[in-house]
């Protein structure tokens, strides 16, 4: 047991820090620093990915044969930590963390050549088509159907909660290709060009005035059969791989650390009764507790990354990350709203051209805080609600 970073780790951190500082454009960094939306600006993401790719850093988790840098788990951790510290745009996960790994793990050579470089360079923005109106936490009840006709599938159905669908180039979909077998068996994993005729995207107005979530209607959409990844009817395996492959990302540890830093910054900035709110006992106590909880979460992440071996079930540990990570996303942003008091009630239509507030008591950090905190309620909903996660944990950990 040794819980310290090695000197090599520390040197790597310095190298990454300097490298990121050198290539991150100022305007992109500033937009990210002042973001008022949950997701980074899509244009910035594309630009940033190509810059990262020039350095060979855009897909840290991929095997080297597909362009990954060959870093250790701890190095990848340090890299992501530094990305957030640098205010770099966030990864568009759907490509690098979700469909990419499925393609290099289950795809054929043609699919790998066609899709992986474009993901690595940020050329393609991807969206995920899993959930349907009737099946939120219950994926086995999917109804979207892809019928093989010659060398193409004809897809009909409807997806929901498809983030970014309105500006995505490609989507990966779970579709039923076989209606004759039991629910989970007939599902396939299909890549669909979002510009295909027959696709209609409806942006869903959200609780926080964003419209990032979408409904996707598929009406006789023709998809080349070569776009099916893996074995037909085994899409469930790919989906499970994808959901379980990133064991620590659902902790949102870097995101949470950034938001707690932001909360502390806000608490330092707002002065009342002659002292910053960070020194008022109520907020100082809340911040301290959040820091303690986050320290625990960070070490829970490191335990999984470092492959702790004794009496340790990595599936249980990563389910815990998902649960606590989502709760911390809510807690670290809720305190920001509370710090702002009535100023936090101001509604901003989020977006790139957000006007700056004009009076001196509207500092740059105000816009976006409440919108992001509010949409964070979704953190305990997507990817299986918190209640479903607990059911799973009861079974996994205790056989209940």
């Amino acid at each position, binding site marked *: 047991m040794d819980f310290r970073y090695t000197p090599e780790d520390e040197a790597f951190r310095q190298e990454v820090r300097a490298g990121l500082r050198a290539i991150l454009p100022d305007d992109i960094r500033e937009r990210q620093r002042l973001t008022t939306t949950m997701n980074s600006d899509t244009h910035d993401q594309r630009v940033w990915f190509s810059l990262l790719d020039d350095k060979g850093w855009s897909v840290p988790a991929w095997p080297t044969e597909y362009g990954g840098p060959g870093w250790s788990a701890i190095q990848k951790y340090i890299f992501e930590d530094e990305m957030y510290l640098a205010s770099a745009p966030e990864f568009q996960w759907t490509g690098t963390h979700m469909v990419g790994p499925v393609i290099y793990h289950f795809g054929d050579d043609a699919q790998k050549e066609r899709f992986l470089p474009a993901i690595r360079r940020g050329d393609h923005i991807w969206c995920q088509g899993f959930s349907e109106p009737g099946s939120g936490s219950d994926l086995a009840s999917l109804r979207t159907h892809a019928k093989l006709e010659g060398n193409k599938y004809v897809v009909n159905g409807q997806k929901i909660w498809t983030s970014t669908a309105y500006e995505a180039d490609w989507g990966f979909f779970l579709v039923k290709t076989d209606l004759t077998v039991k629910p989970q068996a007939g599902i396939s994993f299909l890549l669909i060009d979002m510009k295909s005729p027959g696709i209609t995207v409806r942006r869903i107005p959200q*609780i926080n005035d964003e419209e990032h979530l979408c409904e996707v209607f598929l009406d006789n959409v023709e998809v080349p059969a070569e776009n099916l990844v893996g074995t037909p009817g085994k899409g469930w395996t790919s989906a499970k791989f994808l959901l379980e492959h990133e064991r620590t990302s659902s902790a949102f540890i870097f995101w949470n650390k950034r938001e707690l830093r932001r909360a502390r910054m806000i608490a330092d900035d707002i002065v009342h009764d002659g002292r910053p709110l960070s020194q008022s006992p*109520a907020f100082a106590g809340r911040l301290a507790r959040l820091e303690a909880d986050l320290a625990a979460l960070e070490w829970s992440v490191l335990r999984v990354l470092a492959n702790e071996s004794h009496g340790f079930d990595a599936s249980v540990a990563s389910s815990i990350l998902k649960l606590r990570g989502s709760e911390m996303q809510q807690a670290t942003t809720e305190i920001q709203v509370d710090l702002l008091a*009535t100023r936090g009630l101001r509604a901003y239509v989020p977006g790139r051209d957000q006007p700056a507030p004009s009076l001196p008591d509207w500092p740059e950090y105000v816009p976006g805080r*409440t919108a992001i905190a*509010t949409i964070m309620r979704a953190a305990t909903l997507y990817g299986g609600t918190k209640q479903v996660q607990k059911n799973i944990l009861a079974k996994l950990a205790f056989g209940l």
Partner: protein
Amino acid sequence: MNFDYSEMQQMLLDSAERLMKERGQVEKWRERRHIESGLDADGWAQFAELGWLMLPIPEDAGGLDGTMEDVALLNIALGKGLATEPYINSVVLSAYILDQAGGAHREALLGGIASGEARVALAHAEIGDRYDIDTPRATTAVHDGNGYKIDGAKSVIFDAPSATHFIVSADLADAGTSLFVVEAGAAGLALESYPLVDGTRAADLRFGGLVVDADALLASGAQATDLLFAATDRAAIAAVAQGVGSMEACLDLCSAYMKERKQFGQPIGNFQSLQHMIVDMLVATHQSRSALYGALAALDGEAQARIRAISAAKVVMGEASQLVMRHGVQIHGGYGVTDEYAISHHYRRLLSLEKAYGDIEYHVARLAAAHIA
């Protein structure tokens, strides 16, 4: 002690429930919030017609002389129906100050409030405030001929865009914090308006050499701050009442959704974890209504007991609202975070009601301080 509704209260409630049911539908609410001033003129006229705007106004000023119990009951209904009209600010808070301060404007303005022609917003909060009431104001008033000249700025003034008048607090040399009536269109007053998350409107105000007559002065010094405390306490009670109504609506929404929505082949209402969540919501909501009654009971009593009861109610409602709105969205799954489901509008309204007239932290501190004083 009697918890039952009087005949008048029952009539009030019946009318409120009828109107709110019609107006409170989420589609109508979603339209209404795009009105630039934040005020639906037709709706406000209906409020007037039903006598709601004259409810707490004294009889001698054309009102019904209703009690705070009556006001609270009405506001429960308003909260249930997601009403975002400036009822609390104008009819509860400002009308109380105008009535108690007396003076030249009393009759006309109270009459205007009662008829629906006038809407008065309190413009007290300033940059750097955090629900401060008796800290000195940076906005200044100086004697100017027969009247006063006001300079300064106000921050996050609720309902300002639709107000016809403001009650503006300013520091008057030798007299301390003083309250002035200012017309919305007055020269030297500039508004920067913006929407709030709950669909209401607020504004930042700037006063640049704004001149008012001598009779615009309502109160000064201790009288002014006492009035502000008392009026804000009434507003806090009304906000608690709206919160209770909104939470009661959330219970109905969630109960219906739990029966209708199916997952894993059965209504989600069958799952014990969700059952316990809605029960926790019920308990919190029930306690909030009880705390509201406690605040009403103490309103006219001894000062420390009043402060404790009102802050207790705001704390209980604030904590309850956070639980109810969060559980409410969670029960609705993904639909809960869309603008299309009513629960998300109650979420935003409850967020706002928790922060209005003192948030949880403020009232916890005030309640604690009431023991030391």
